[in-house]
């Protein structure tokens, strides 16, 4: 039986529907990320679980008990906010022990759990500092310790790392995951950073427009996106708007080019599909005179040095493709070189597109 259950949650603000029926089941000790761009409803959902907002329809259950009408200060959940949530007039220690103080624990009873937690988050040396004396990363650690001090049933995190520097972000997310695993606490994590979500979660739910587009393990989300939005949102993906020409053999046609895609077998002819190829699956070689099978012919448009890997952008036949290859190999294909990009027939995935639909969703680049 699931530990935390979000059952058919709806929330509207006036005419704007923020959540259009969300269903989530979390096992005890599970770490689920709600991932999506701004406005997709993920924070709304989290706030409903915390109790700062009431759903228009649906229920929230913990261990089978309906908490939907319970006020936030009685839900026994710990929340870490994005920023500014530490009480400025209290030291780190006083912040962390606040929940215990409210629960009537005496000073003696409070001391050890608080000290232990502050040590757990790595701040034993700064316990008597005030929030304005702490860096952003340190403040969030205190916030985490404070949320954990009350031994909550569920841990809720609302984009806790968004306001921090990149390096601190990576470091802190590892620690959050480590602590979560050590304590075995059920966790709901909201973020718009897909790399973050994929790195630390047991499961990821991608949200868009108030609904969950897809939910699964990070690996599933990455290798087998189920909708065009998820394909676009997670990682970088080459997307080819194509039409099935021969469903028996798995042949599709894109911009006049015939391609063999195994995933297209069994589809009906004429169906409009999206062929998805990860950049690392695309094989680039210098163009030969003959036309290699299942390949695009084009030339190198740009090279972006990313360390061990170089991202090579290829343009041809009216299409742009992105290929990731080792920097050493990329050196042999400078800008302007004529190349042939081979599409692995088994490596490509397929998503159906509505026949006359609006096409691919346009995303704000800042949402990645």
């Amino acid at each position: 039986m699931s530990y935390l259950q979000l059952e058919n949650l709806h929330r509207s603000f006036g005419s704007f529907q923020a959540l259009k029926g969300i269903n989530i089941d979390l096992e005890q000790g599970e770490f689920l990320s709600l991932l999506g761009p701004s406005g997709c409803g993920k924070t709304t959902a989290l706030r409903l679980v915390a109790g700062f907002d009431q759903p228009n329809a649906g229920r929230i259950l913990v261990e089978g008990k309906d908490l939907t009408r319970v006020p936030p200060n009685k839900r026994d959940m710990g929340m870490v906010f994005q920023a500014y949530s530490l009480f400025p007039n209290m030291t780190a220690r006083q912040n962390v022990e606040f929940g215990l103080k409210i629960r009537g624990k005496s000073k003696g009873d409070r001391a050890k759990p608080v000290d232990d937690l502050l040590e757990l988050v790595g701040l034993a040396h700064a316990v008597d500092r005030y929030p304005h004396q702490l860096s952003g990363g340190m403040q969030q650690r205190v916030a985490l310790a404070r949320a954990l001090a009350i031994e909550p049933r569920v841990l809720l995190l609302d984009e806790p790392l968004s306001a921090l520097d990149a390096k601190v972000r990576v470091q802190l997310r590892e620690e959050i995951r480590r602590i979560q695993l050590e304590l075995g606490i059920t966790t709901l994590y909201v973020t718009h950073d897909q790399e973050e979500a994929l790195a630390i979660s047991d499961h990821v739910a991608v949200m868009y427009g108030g609904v969950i587009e897809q939910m699964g393990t990070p690996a599933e989300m990455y290798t087998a996106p189920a909708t065009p939005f998820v394909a676009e949102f997670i990682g970088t993906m080459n997307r080819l708007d194509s039409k099935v020409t021969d469903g028996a053999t798995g042949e599709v046609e894109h911009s006049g080019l015939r391609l063999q895609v195994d995933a297209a077998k069994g589809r009906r002819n004429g169906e409009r599909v999206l062929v998805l190829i990860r950049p690392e699956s695309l094989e680039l070689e210098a163009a030969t005179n003959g036309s290699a099978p299942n390949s695009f012919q084009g030339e190198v448009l740009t090279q972006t040095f990313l360390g061990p890997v170089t991202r090579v952008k290829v343009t041809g036949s009216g299409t742009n493709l992105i290929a990731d290859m080792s920097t050493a190999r990329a050196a042999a294909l400078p800008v302007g070189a004529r190349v042939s990009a081979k599409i692995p027939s088994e490596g490509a995935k397929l998503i159906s597109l509505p026949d006359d639909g609006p096409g691919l969703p346009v995303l704000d680049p800042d949402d990645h």
Partner: protein
Amino acid sequence: MAVEGRRVGPPITTQAAPEALRPDIVSGRKRRSLAWIATLPFFAYTIAFLFVPAGAVMLGAFQDKHDHATFSNIRLLFHHPYIDAYWGSIRISLITAVIGAIFGMFVAYAAIREGTPRWIRSALSTFSGVAANFGGIPLAFAFIATLGPLGVVTVWFRSSGYDLSTKWPHFQLFSERGIELAYLYFQLPLMILVIAPAIDGLKREWREAASNLGAKGWQFWRYVGIPVLMPSFLGAFILLFGNAFAAYATAYSINQGQNIVPILIGAYYTGNVLDNPHLAQALAFGMFVVLALMMLIYIPLQRRSARWAK
């Protein structure tokens, strides 16, 4: 030398230009002394029209009619009716500061908090800006028109058979209570204007975090809200105190015989009782002492309440 895969150009050398050739430093020094001179008019003005007169008052307090040094005027301050005037001023200032501060905070919070429609906050802000300046003579009349013997409210109660001055609350406009009620008219808006930024600064996240950790409303206020607001509250309170203490026009217009220090000082110059100019100066000096004492109480309190602040 070329490193594999990269091209390196010829080395670039830089040299700081010798100081003699850098015009901005040389003229910068010259210009700074010019700048000092250019601020002289300002200092001359403030010294002439603020510090010298203030100093003259302080000095004059210790002189007698023949300009000899004496404490006699100061000693006189501790006798009736002067000491009563000081207590009256202090009483009025404290009461209006306390009531204005507390009620002002409630009103400001009511307007700024989450659930209230935005237009209420703008309206309150605009009105407060105006009302805080609606003091002195016009305000006095407005209160006479409201609660004076023929005032609208007084007459309304009387026509219902209830005489406000003889029955509870035994209210007379031309009394200390009356002055206090009138003073509140500019004290409250002043408080609202001054405390609003501090209330704005109460982040929603603190309220929610407290609630999330199990705190009820009053617990949030007790442990977070009030402590965070306290430094600003104290500052506003002192401002209100000083504002009421210095006020002259309103009290003058309502009741020229009101026994507060500014009226007493004015009495000399409007040709009433006092014939000793140095006494007026001593009274003024006394005001200054009271204000200084208040600051002495306030500063350590403030520092303690803001221990945690930047």
